[in-house]
């Protein structure tokens, strides 16, 4: 019975580059943000997120730390987000991925399938690095005992 992780692939590389694909893009240089609209798809290593609208915030170019090259600091997806990672899936109305803290915060009718179990609640805080998830608000869980015995 394989190493079933709490959520997402265990070997997720949270430092891998984030690739974003969308129908259209608006860039706002001054605020360092970009808004992708229409079938937006965000991929980072084994984690994949889709949503109708995603607002990406880029990291400030910091002259004093030239070695950190330009990158995404925060991804904020709205309008119904689905997220899959290593066979587990989660969905919610909005999702905020803070890349540095490795946390994805899903909120609004969150539904999370983890292995054989299905959880639903108001909010889920998923840590992609250590594969944990914390759900809050009257959480309903359906645990399907596998054919273990």
């Amino acid at each position: 019975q394989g190493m079933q992780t709490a959520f997402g692939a265990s070997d997720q590389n949270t430092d891998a580059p984030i690739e974003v694909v969308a129908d259209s893009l608006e860039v706002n240089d001054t605020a360092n943000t970009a808004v992708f609209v229409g079938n937006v798809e965000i991929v980072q290593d084994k984690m994949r997120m889709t949503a109708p609208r995603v607002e990406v915030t880029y990291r400030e170019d910091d002259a004093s730390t030239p070695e950190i090259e330009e990158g995404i600091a925060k991804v904020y997806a709205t309008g119904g987000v689905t997220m899959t990672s290593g066979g587990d899936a989660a969905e919610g109305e909005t999702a905020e991925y803070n890349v540095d803290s490795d946390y994805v915060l899903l909120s609004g009718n969150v539904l999370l399938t983890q292995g054989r179990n299905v959880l639903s609640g108001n909010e889920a805080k998923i840590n992609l690095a250590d594969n944990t998830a914390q759900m809050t608000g009257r959480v309903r869980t359906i645990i399907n005992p596998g054919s273990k015995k």
Partner: protein
Amino acid sequence: QATQTEDAPVYLIADQVFLDGEDLLVASGHVEARQGERRLIAEKITYDQTSDTLTIEGSIRLEDGSNTVVLADSAELSDDMREGILRGARLILEYQLQMAAVEMQRTGARYQQLSKVAVTSCHVCDDGKPPLWQIRARRVIHDQETRNIYFEGAQLRVLDVPVFYLPKMRLPDPTVKRARGFLIPEIVSSSTLGTGIRTPYFLPIGDHADLTVSPLLSAETKTVELRYRQAFYNGDIEINAAGSQDTLRQDVGRSYVFADGKFQLPEKFRLQFDIETTSDSTYLQDYDYSSKDRLDSALLLTRDTRTSSFGLGGTFFETLRSSEENDTQASRVGEARYELRMTPQAIGGEARLGFLMHEHVRDSRTDIVGRDVQRVASSFDWRRSWIVGNGFDFQLLGGATTGYFDLDDDSTLRERTDYTIPYASATLRWPLEAVGAQGGTHLLEPVIQLAWSKDDTTDIPNDESTDVEFDSGNLFSLSRFPAPDQTEDGLRANIGLGWTRWGADGSYSHLSLGRVIRAEKDNRFSGSSGLAGLESDWLFETQIGQVEGPMLTARSLLDDHLRLAKVEAQLGWEFNRGTLDATYLWLDKDTQEDRDSEVSEWTLGANYQFAEFWTGAVEWRYDLVDDYTSKAGLGLRYENECVKVDLSASRRFTSSDNLDPSTTVGLTVSLSGFSAGRSSGAVRQTCKT
């Protein structure tokens, strides 16, 4: 059924759920988990999916569909909640029997093992006061399959005082209806049998029969009592018997058997039988099995519909009275009867056709005293009512009965006597109604009947009609003799007046008077029957009380000087806290009715719940002629949700040559919550907060 729910998903609801990498799911905050019929409530549940265990904390409550509830402080259970350990556990069976234990282990769906246990069905208050009774045990195993509770090192404590110790004990749990085993023992002490203990043992036999064996051992007697019951598809039988070796009759074993049964046969036939026999005349009385002084064993086949009634049967009598001998008493009686009711269209009214065949035999061959009787009779009559004039109910009745009498061992009647008796009557009834001032309803009903019959038979001895009664049940019947060996004769008028008032407040009162006026005297009627002479005594009947409450019913005969000749009265009252039933009887001396002294007697039976858990009962029979109590009894019951204590004491003062007066005291203590001593959902104690 277990397998089906085993794979059922577990539904979990909680304020927070935390998923940890190693398949750990931690639910906390008002957690409720459901699987199939099992339901678990706790503060925190940690579900480890690799080892499939639940670690549970905080005021746990586990219900598993049957009426079993488990409470605990913490627990480690398998994910199907069937296996594991609960700490600070309380197991409650049928919401009645509570087992509090330091630790409880569930193994498979079957066993629940508790250690350092206190078992009680009493309401336990948190004020630290001990329950009325509890059983403390080192270990208790509840087998949910055989539904037995096994105790190890069991100690019964009453108000925390150790009373009784048993290394091993087995008791059926409350869900068991028919478990093999000991029922509640009864301590019995009587002046004739000494002090003893009756320990009934119940043995179910299949699904439809059971046997209860109750040995009764005391200084004076070694007795075994048996009760066998069996239910069939269309009937049931019950046999009660006992055998004794006692000091009252050293030389011989004593016994009795009472069996009865009834069966519903096709085509509306019913078969009933009862057998009553005993070894000696005072055995039933000595052991208080029955107060019957004449035993009758009978087999009876009957069929009854709206328009017909059929009966065929035989009875065997055995007298236990010291004043009677069996061979001069009719011991074997056979009877066949049939009656058909018809409604002839042409002439209207109702026609009745009847047949009656009867035979009774006395073993003795001596003349008169050993008389045997065979009689056959058939009867046909027709009656019709008309409403005439201003609300008069006029009824005409005419008919005849014909048959024959044949006697053996009786020289007064050489050979068979045939007879034909025509009879007729005309009855006028005029019911009047009125609505009283306060909305009450009145009914006044005068009735006058002219009756005639012609009975020429004079030589048939009165063998079965020695006791003639006179009441509103036969004021207007054509022959008040109970058996056809005598029939009323000649012209007579039966008059009656009845008045009844129903109050709007539910009060009820009834008064009726009746009298028989004859053209010629009939000296076959005894003095105390009230029917002797040209004018009978006045029949006086009254009923006073509440329609749904206490009711006094009384009947008496007043002679012309308005002197009472006979009085019978009964008071019945059922109220929410108990019942009262009293009777009074006064009969004058009358040798024609074999009553050589006056009879005057009060009886009183009452039970009353005088306090929340206490019910008292009293029984009293007082003989006013000899001015002594013939029987008195007291009963006291304490019953709450977990114990029933019955204390009874009674004394019988009557005696005969081999029957002495006796006092009997009985005590039973039954702990409710085990199927042997079930509490009837009695009043539950409440905690004094």
